[in-house]
């Protein structure tokens, strides 16, 4: 049960943090259509995060931070707003600043291709909640990936500047690509139990898809090394970049000022 909860938190935190970053584009996108698209993607991911946080809390209530007696804060919010950055289990890819639209698209492409593959393989999960989340998520992620792929190719084959920017964006986020496929012990165990998916098993298909999009844009895979962790610890172990604690300071400020508030 603790393994299942931990696994759900991993998937939830990826979606929660990525959703936060995308929501920062609100009222700032290059055009209204993209403002709406990025907002909708953020909303989809937020929805996935909520279901997964609720599942984590149900699977193992001990993962939910304890709030003052009588607090009406539901478990999903306790998990989202009352854990510190060292307790979040998202991959480091999702937490960095957006950068420009080129970097945002490059990150969204990699993220959505990866998550789509994970959720596809999660649809037959023995955990019916996870299976249902996966079925819904596959539809959403397909749209996200197609949106990102379309823009990636457009930028890569647009102007010199747009090509330069999207390639720089891809190069900047690529050191965090490898971390997506490192399988943690917990993931291995839930995968063996037929409940979760081991990310190493989707590496080939994700990379094939990415290669296809990159080649449609005439872009080479960046030749940059993976970002080191600290004594082997990375995002999945709660070891993050400096960006995450700043992100959480903003995200959690109102909720934490009112631990017994009703919203």
């Amino acid at each position, binding site marked *: 049960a603790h393994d299942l909860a931990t696994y759900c938190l991993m998937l939830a935190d990826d979606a929660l943090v990525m959703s936060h970053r995308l929501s920062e584009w609100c009222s700032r996108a290059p055009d209204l259509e993209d403002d709406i698209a990025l*907002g*909708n993607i953020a909303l989809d991911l937020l929805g996935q995060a*909520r279901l997964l946080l609720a599942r984590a809390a149900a699977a193992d209530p001990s993962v939910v931070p304890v709030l003052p007696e009588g607090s009406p804060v539901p478990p*999903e919010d306790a998990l989202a707003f009352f854990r510190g950055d060292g307790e979040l289990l998202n991959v480091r890819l999702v937490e960095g600043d957006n950068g420009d*639209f080129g970097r945002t698209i490059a990150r969204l492409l990699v993220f959505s291709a990866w998550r789509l593959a994970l959720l596809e393989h999660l649809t037959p999960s023995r955990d019916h909640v996870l299976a249902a989340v996966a079925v819904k998520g596959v539809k959403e992620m397909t749209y996200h990936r197609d949106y990102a792929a379309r823009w990636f190719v457009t930028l890569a084959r647009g102007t010199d500047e747009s090509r330069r920017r999207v390639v720089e964006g891809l190069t900047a986020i690529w050191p965090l690509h490898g971390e997506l496929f490192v399988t943690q012990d917990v993931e291995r165990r839930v995968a063996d139990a037929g409940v979760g998916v081991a990310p190493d098993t989707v590496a080939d298909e994700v990379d094939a898809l990415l290669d296809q999009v990159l080649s449609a844009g005439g872009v080479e895979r960046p030749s940059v090394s993976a970002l080191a962790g600290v004594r082997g610890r990375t995002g999945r172990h709660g070891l993050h970049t400096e960006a995450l604690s700043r992100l959480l300071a903003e995200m959690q400020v109102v909720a934490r000022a009112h631990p017994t508030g*009703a919203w």
Partner: protein
Amino acid sequence: MTVAPERDEQELMAGFEATIERHDRIEPRDWMPEGYRRTVVRQVAQHAHSEIIGMQPEGNWITRAPSLRRKAILLAKVQDEAGHGLYLYSACETSGVSRDELTEMLIGGRQKYSSIFNYPTLTYADVGTIGWLVDGAAICNQVPLCRTSYGPYGRAMIRVCKEESFHQRQGYELLATMMRGTDEQRAMVQESVDRFWWPALMMFGPPDDDSPNTAQSMAWGIKRNTNDDLRQRMVDMTVPQAEALGVTLPDPELRWNEERQAHDFGTPDWDEFKDVISGNGPCNAQRLEHRRRAWEDGAWVREAATVFARRTEADREAAR
């Protein structure tokens, strides 16, 4: 062919006036007086700009929403506003003005947007108050506009109004929930209402005796009610809701007038209104700067899309 153009124009005008008379719609393909066209475009554009600028004060709280449910509601609402902006810009485009031109006019300060969005949002309660009071005022304004004489505008308004009332209920519900919460939350709601009440009443524009364009706009059926008329409707609608919520509206002169069967109320600070309208409100510069930056930062992306589309089209031609 050039015989008696004045005569033609007179006939066209007669037809236009008859359409207005019958409360029928004027459509983009119809003949219309230049003044009508200009007024309609200006009004629809201002409305569109208000939706887009209106994303900012609420958008300010998306990343700080205190619960995931409220975050989802707020994100969806702000996206709806972007959607409203889109329809309304399209309604303008039927009159031959492009979205890019309108955006340039907005960020160049040559077209306005609703004065309310020049006030800051300072607490999460403001998200609720904007839903309740600001969207409430917008609905008072917009419901009659569903019957406006310009077809594309009226049809856009029908869709917009439906969503606005949904937003208004969500705003009210947030405030109601907060009022059932902690003392701090109740104080936050009251403080927010104190700040937004008067600016919300100013949304209807200056008093009728100081509103020079109202008469012509009403004659043309673009506007359906006077500013003061709508303002009264807003007050009468809001007072019982405030009571239900348990908040005090910050107006010592507010009371029921049995004779008029309506509420008497105090006078907004019209000097502040003029200050805000003329660009000196607490957030005018900030809102325009934000919009300008988004527009300029996105220029390379829009250009890339144009170039890519042209190139793809050329490839397709070549492949034929």
